[in-house]
């Protein structure tokens, strides 16, 4: 999902190196996008998705491109401009989703909202404060704002969630991959992907000290896509199902009251799923990923709803996307805990990922989905399973992964700190 940010801005600024090689142009489906017959459909799609891109401009450039001889000096720059415009266009939209208007379609709801009776459920930050399970205060001077430490059994619960998730994915025959969190632009640019330095959503290493091309990964989806760049798969090996546990870094900030505390943080651990399939199987694969998410989350016993997202929520790469929102009783609101998308050939054309079908090379379809994003998962768990007596019940499915503990109690093993007052 995070990738859409990168794809949205690709080709806006291209390094001179890449400019020289025409082979770096992504193989965008010109036959479809430049056919006048499809103009109306493409135009409506852009409108519905509230996306960027201008199909009229694409048409203009395409006719100019067709009329220019290959030997002509301006040929390359015209081609470049054409592809710059083409790259902005969003993916096609699933026919069912096309009909949705502004709001997501609720596919179904899972588990009932927990009844707290006369008690007022507390927020995650209040629970962790009472039980001494997290520190977030006064960390700006030593590790930057919005930093957090999970303490004692909350850190154990994080580990239990990772174990439970990976354990379950391995049983479903996902292949585990350990990915780099620092990505050089080489990986991203190997097929022309560029990152804009000025985007504050992405952390980068200081270009003066470490060179200009090192960025902190926002999701394992990026590094897994990097791993698959320029690969050819045989049809019998598909679908390919990968899983990775990684740290994710996001520089974005939010001043929304609803997103206070650890709801939106700069760094967190996430288990991610990534799948590669044949075009005919990708719809089915998306359903499989969604079912996997539901099977992972349902036993955790919080209330959630599964949403089929409307066109304007898809970003550029997704053809169809499901989000799952968990009920967070303390926040008294739903919060997105996962999403999964079918990107069809949007990524594979840009990353050059193919498979062999009847001795021909064809583009695969790629899909991705969250298996467990720790901070929000912990919010949903603690807020749902808080007990007014001052403990947290651990869902039985997680207990084997946390030494058979049945609940989390007040942490008296980590002493409270007191900030020093310095005399001046």
């Amino acid at each position, binding site marked *: 999902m995070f990738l859409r940010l990168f794809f949205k801005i690709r080709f806006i600024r291209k390094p001179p190196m890449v400019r020289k090689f025409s082979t770096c142009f992504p193989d965008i489906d010109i036959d479809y996008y430049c056919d006048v017959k499809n103009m109306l459909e493409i135009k409506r799609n852009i409108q519905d998705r509230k996306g960027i891109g201008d199909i009229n401009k694409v048409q203009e450039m395409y006719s100019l491109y067709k009329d220019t001889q290959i030997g002509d000096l301006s040929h390359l720059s015209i081609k470049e401009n054409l592809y710059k415009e083409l790259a902005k266009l969003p993916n096609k939209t699933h026919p069912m989703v096309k009909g949705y208007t502004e709001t997501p379609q609720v596919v179904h709801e899972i588990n009932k909202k927990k009844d707290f009776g006369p008690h007022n459920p507390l927020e995650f930050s209040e629970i962790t404060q009472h039980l001494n399970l997290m520190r977030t205060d006064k960390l700006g*001077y*030593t*590790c*930057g704002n919005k*930093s957090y*430490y*999970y*303490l*004692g*059994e*909350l*850190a154990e619960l*994080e*580990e239990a969630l990772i*174990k439970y998730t*990976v*354990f379950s994915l*391995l049983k479903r025959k996902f*292949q*585990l*991959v*350990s990915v*780099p*969190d*620092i*990505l*050089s632009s080489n*990986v991203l640019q190997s097929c022309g992907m560029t990152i804009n*330095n*000025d985007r*504050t959503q992405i*952390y*980068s*290493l*200081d*270009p003066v*000290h*470490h060179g200009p091309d*090192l960025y*902190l990964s926002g999701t394992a989806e990026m*590094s897994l896509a990097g*791993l698959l760049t320029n690969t050819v798969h045989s049809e019998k090996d598909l679908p390919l199902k990968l899983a*990775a546990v990684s*740290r994710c*870094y996001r*520089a974005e900030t939010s001043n929304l009251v609803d997103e206070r505390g650890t709801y939106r943080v*700069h*760094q967190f651990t996430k288990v991610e799923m990534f799948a590669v399939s044949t075009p005919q199987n990708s719809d089915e694969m998306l359903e499989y990923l969604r079912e996997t998410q539901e099977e992972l989350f349902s036993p955790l016993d919080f209330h959630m709803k599964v949403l089929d997202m409307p066109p304007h929520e898809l970003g550029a790469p997704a053809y169809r996307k499901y989000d799952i929102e968990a009920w967070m009783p303390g926040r008294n609101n739903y919060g997105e805990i996962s999403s999964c998308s079918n990107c069809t050939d949007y990524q594979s054309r840009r990353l050059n990922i193919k498979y062999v079908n009847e001795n021909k090379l064809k583009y695969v379809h790629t899909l991705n989905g969250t298996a467990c994003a720790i901070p929000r998962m912990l919010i949903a768990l603690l807020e749902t399973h808080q007990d007014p007596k001052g403990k947290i019940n651990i869902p039985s499915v997680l*207990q*084997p*992964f946390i*030494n*058979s503990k049945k609940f989390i109690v007040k942490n008296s*093993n980590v*002493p409270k*700190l*007191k*900030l*020093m007052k*310095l005399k001046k």
Partner: protein
Amino acid sequence: MKDKDLIKAELKKRQLEIDLNKIENLWSAYEELKTRKLEYENKKEKISKELSVMIKNKQEGNHFEKLKIQINLLKDNIKKLKEPLWSIEELAILEALKLPNKLHNLTPELYDQIIFEHGVKPNNNKDHLKVGKEKNLIHFIKNENYYLKDDAALFELGAKFYFSQILKNNSYIQFSNPDFAKSLVIEGCGGDHTNSDSTFILHHNEDTKVNADSRLHLTGGGSLYSFFAYHAKNVLYDKVFPLKYFSMGRQYSPSPVKEDSLYHVSQSSVIQIFNATRNEAELNDVLHSNIDLIKKLYTQLGYHYRLSFVAADRLNMWESLRLAIEMYSSSQKCYVEVGNISMSEDFISKRLMFTYTEDKQYKFPFVLSGTILNVPKLLACILEQDDEFVLPEQFGIDNWCTVSTM
């Protein structure tokens, strides 16, 4: 500077070229200015008291005027001293901060001292990157960018979980730490926060002006920095000690060499331990219990390893003692430090104001810390063993949960 000879001897053992005379000169100049300023201030206070009495009694005349001139002169002098005092203070303190920690009596002088050995070293010419490629376990692009696949990826998680479990069984408390640290923490831990070879410095993407002393560094939640970032400028009660914490996370540091190898990668999954005690005697006890724990952790895995105290000249300036956990690398033809524990005693605590109160006094805790597991280094050594690589049984997913029927 009282034990100048001792400091000189220790600098020699560490093979550090630090000009003690320079520090001494700066320091005495600083002390001198400070004394002079204090004298002026005392005089000023005396006169101002005298003056206030005179004003109360409405006494005026020559003496009164004389005192007024004197006090103005003193004020002037104090003001003039301010800047030179500040600059020499900064110079003297910066220079003094370069002085290393004192050495622990267990730190050997010339050569590492092996204190424990298990098994026999492998005898082959294997190279972990070749083995990893053949078995499709490692996709290595460069030291800054590599992937572990299948059993190697399982190895990463399984090793962490195995260590985590045994630490918890031994009354260690788990932490999950942030990955960023500010420059002051790097400097306080004895690092050079302006040196991009020692830590990754993040791009400053805010509108404010760049301040070289207040950058964000990507160090990892499995680094010592993250534990000191937690404790810096904070006070604890004496009753809470000893502290036994650990974190499971990443460690990021710029690759020291060009040669491609899992021994030199810039991203590692690790287990970091952090112990704090009230004094040296308690810290020595903690050292020995940790050595026992390390033996338990590594002996169960069954591979050849050894434990040694590192010679003074190989210590970092903040370390008074380091125990290296070493395994033999068939490709490097030497022992590699796959893990370690270090004593910093109260050296970093003092610099980062990590304190506790005892008898109504502020004191500095003694700290022992270490990366007791470094996944890529351990994996590399295990891939270079004589036997074919198999995932150690302790790391397998059947050991991730307590109920085997899952």
